[in-house]
């Protein structure tokens, strides 16, 4: 990497920090409990809109993993989710009516909050439909992972997005609040992912899965990116550049081994395809607030008429993290 390129990246990172500063004026604190944050706490950051039905299970799942505090930006919800969150003892809530798209899909808001509250903490940035799975997550709390990463001097931890879907039409089974979404969306694609290395940022660009297979069989380039680096030992100089797909400085993106070994990695189970998806898709089509002009929702709407079924005979049913590790979707690396 030349000095010029490094300088460009530095400018980019500064710009992201400045954007975060500019956009933070639209955030209004609703419940600020950040004084409860203690040294060594693992913090979770999320942006959401109208996700009330998902919240009870979401909070329970991450509390069980050992998340100490949730810092959440509510983007103009109308379903009572904000009130629900404001009542939780371990949630700090901000609200904004500003454009999700203009805040680069929430990244600017979260970059700001992370810079303010997460310096020196391990932070997990996820959406309300993403469930973090890491090696030994059924027996070891997240603190065990972050302690190990600390002793190994690793600053960032990769977890690819794994799209989960139900068998049969997406809206056939209604999701109830508090239910484990993987009871319904229990299936995933195990071996149809493609990977490219981004030479500038150093991160891997992963595509594939059911969305590429069903929504984009003729335009694979448009299929959404699945690579994510959600768990980072945050420093106020860091910035997410594009969702949680890319980080700056670039060294944080090197969550893979390029010499044949396997680094430790996890998976974000993406329970997007529940019955709530249909309504979301319709709404997003009119709002146009999602990535790349909501191309994904358009593709979905295009085939929605044909009662889409993401399931196929070769779909795998989710069991646990060990299954994902055997299939080669994640790795224990040298954490044993």
């Amino acid at each position, binding site marked *: 990497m030349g000095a010029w390129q490094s300088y460009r990246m530095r400018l980019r990172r500064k710009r992201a920090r400045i954007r975060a500063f500019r956009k933070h004026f639209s955030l209004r604190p609703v419940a600020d409990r950040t004084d409860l944050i203690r040294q060594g706490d693992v913090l979770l950051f999320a942006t959401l809109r109208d996700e009330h039905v998902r919240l009870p299970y979401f909070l329970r799942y991450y509390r069980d993993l050992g998340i100490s505090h949730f810092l959440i930006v509510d983007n103009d919800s109308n379903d009572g989710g904000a009130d629900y969150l404001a009542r939780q003892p371990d949630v700090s809530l901000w609200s904004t009516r500003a454009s999700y798209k203009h805040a680069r899909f929430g990244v600017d808001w979260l970059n700001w909050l992370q810079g303010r509250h997460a310096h020196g903490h391990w932070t997990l940035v996820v959406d309300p439909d993403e469930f973090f799975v890491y090696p030994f997550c059924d027996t070891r709390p997240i603190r*065990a992972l972050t302690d190990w990463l600390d002793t190994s001097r690793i600053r960032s931890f990769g977890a690819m997005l794994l799209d989960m879907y139900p068998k049969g039409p997406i809206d056939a089974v209604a999701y109830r609040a508090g239910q484990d979404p993987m009871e319904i969306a229990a299936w995933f694609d195990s071996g149809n992912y493609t990977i490219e290395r981004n030479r500038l940022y150093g991160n891997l660009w992963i595509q594939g899965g059911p969305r590429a297979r069903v929504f984009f069989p003729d335009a694979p380039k448009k299929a959404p990116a699945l690579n994510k680096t959600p768990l980072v030992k945050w420093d106020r100089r860091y910035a997410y550049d594009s969702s949680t797909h890319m980080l700056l400085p670039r060294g944080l993106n090197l969550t893979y081994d390029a010499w044949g070994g396997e680094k430790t990695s996890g998976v974000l189970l993406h329970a997007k395809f529940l019955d709530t998806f249909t309504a979301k898709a319709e709404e997003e089509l009119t709002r146009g607030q999602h990535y790349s002009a909501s191309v994904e929702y358009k593709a979905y709407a295009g085939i929605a008429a044909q009662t889409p079924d993401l399931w196929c005979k070769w779909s795998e049913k989710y069991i646990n993290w060990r299954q994902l590790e055997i299939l080669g979707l994640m790795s224990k690396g040298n954490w044993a």
Partner: protein
Amino acid sequence: MSVGIIMLVHTAFGRAEQVARHWAASGCPLVIHVDRAVPRATYDAFVQALSDVPHLRFAPRHRCEWGTWGLVAATQGAAEIMLRTFRDVRHVYLASGSCLPLRPLQELVDYLDARPRTDFIESATIAEVPWTIGGLDQERFTLRFPFSWRRQRYLFDAYVALQRRVGVRRRIPDGLVPHMGSQWWCLTRQTLSAILDDPNRRAHDRYFKAVWIPDESYFQTLARRYSRRIESRSLTLSKFDYQGKPHIFYDDHLQLLRRSDCFVARKIWPFADRLYEAFLTDQAGAMKRTEPDPAKIDRIFAKAVERRRRGRSGLYMQSRFPGEGHGGGLTCAPYSVFEGFGDLFENFEAWLARTCGMRVHGHLFAPDRAAFSDGRSVISGALSDSAALRDYNKRAFLTNLIWNTRGERQGFQLGPGDHIEDVEWDIAKDPNAQISVISGAWAVPLFRSNADFGDIRRAAARLQRIESRHLDVLRSQWARARVRIWTMAEVIEAPMEPLQTLLDEIGRQGPQTLAEAPRMADLTGFGQFLQNLRNQGMHPYLMGDFPVDEAPRNLPRDGRKPYLVRPE
């Protein structure tokens, strides 16, 4: 009590206190050293918390940074107190605050009582054990290391490089043969006091202060000088990863530790409540329920190191993405590629699948779709037959296919009519690929087609150009695949030879001789067909020599009946 414990503590004081009380409850004298980097208040609270424990002393504090002399100085200080204060002590056991005693202390005492003159210290010469963390072995002892490896890496590396350039070599003090090993030992009073009271101790200390990671070599080297009986192993179970960091034990290792048969394990995650509970409250019960199987721990941690260093060959995923030429072959298992066989033999795919019990696909890289076996549109791993998805990343398509179907050998057809650009190189360079080619066989479908001759001529020219370039790839010096190429004429001359060869390589189910052979396409007039191409100015040469005016020699005169290859 004949065993005294030295504990080095720098963090997790709650756990250290718990373990110290556990040792003390069995009547063991203790000397505890607390890192000087620990704040005064924390230290005082810790001392206060343990003030009611008898036979416990605190050693003068040193700064204990990893790989520095401070650790040795701390141990020396603590050992002096131990030997001076507790005269009954015969063995001194060096442990850390994150060690956990697995077996009742009485068992350790009995064990050591039975071996009163034995020193347990892992101690190997560098010549024999290549401990090359950081790329330094012999040089640990012959260079100087005034800079911290952790905090001043640049200076550390630069100073090492400078000394190498200048050619500085320290002299190793007389009588010392450098040895290294685990820093957790158990030494007898005789050996330990001999080390500490050595008239040359100042010289030794001065020397080791500038050695790198002296805590792994000071006692290990000097014990060799004084001990009468060394067992070169540590009584502390401690596993190291590929960077030389100790592996950490968690609650889910409980069964493993129960079967380990070791006296003490390190290092334990401070929040591993179940482990502390199991081994500190009901030790006898914790260990006795299971048969010892210490090798299992070795296997698990050795596998972890192997996974981190080499990984699963042929797997491409978010945390393993080897660049070209790294990480073993392109794919994870052997597979077969057939070129031209499907054109020349009419029922080749079905026949091969029956004979070999392997999965035989059609043209996976065909322009319209990936022709999976049995006409399926999706196969293992939910891999789609969409040509666009496949062509988006053909290499990934291939590696995914082989990875998804591991355990079942795969074979597929390839030809100049397929989308082979790029991927032909990947296949040719892959040692797992076994490629069998009948060159020129693409002419058979043209010959049998009903197209206009002008179109046939153009198609033939195009296919021949592609295949000719493709054969160059297969024959190039970078090709690592097993490649066999026959011309079509050779195959017609002796059809069993290529079939037998490829079956021998794949490994066949059932009897060793062929019971059944595929049917060859009707080639009557093929020679004339080639001549017609020649007459049109397109020279087909990849299929070898065919006589013009008669059917190929082995074919029966009656061209109406298809030719059946018979086993020889």
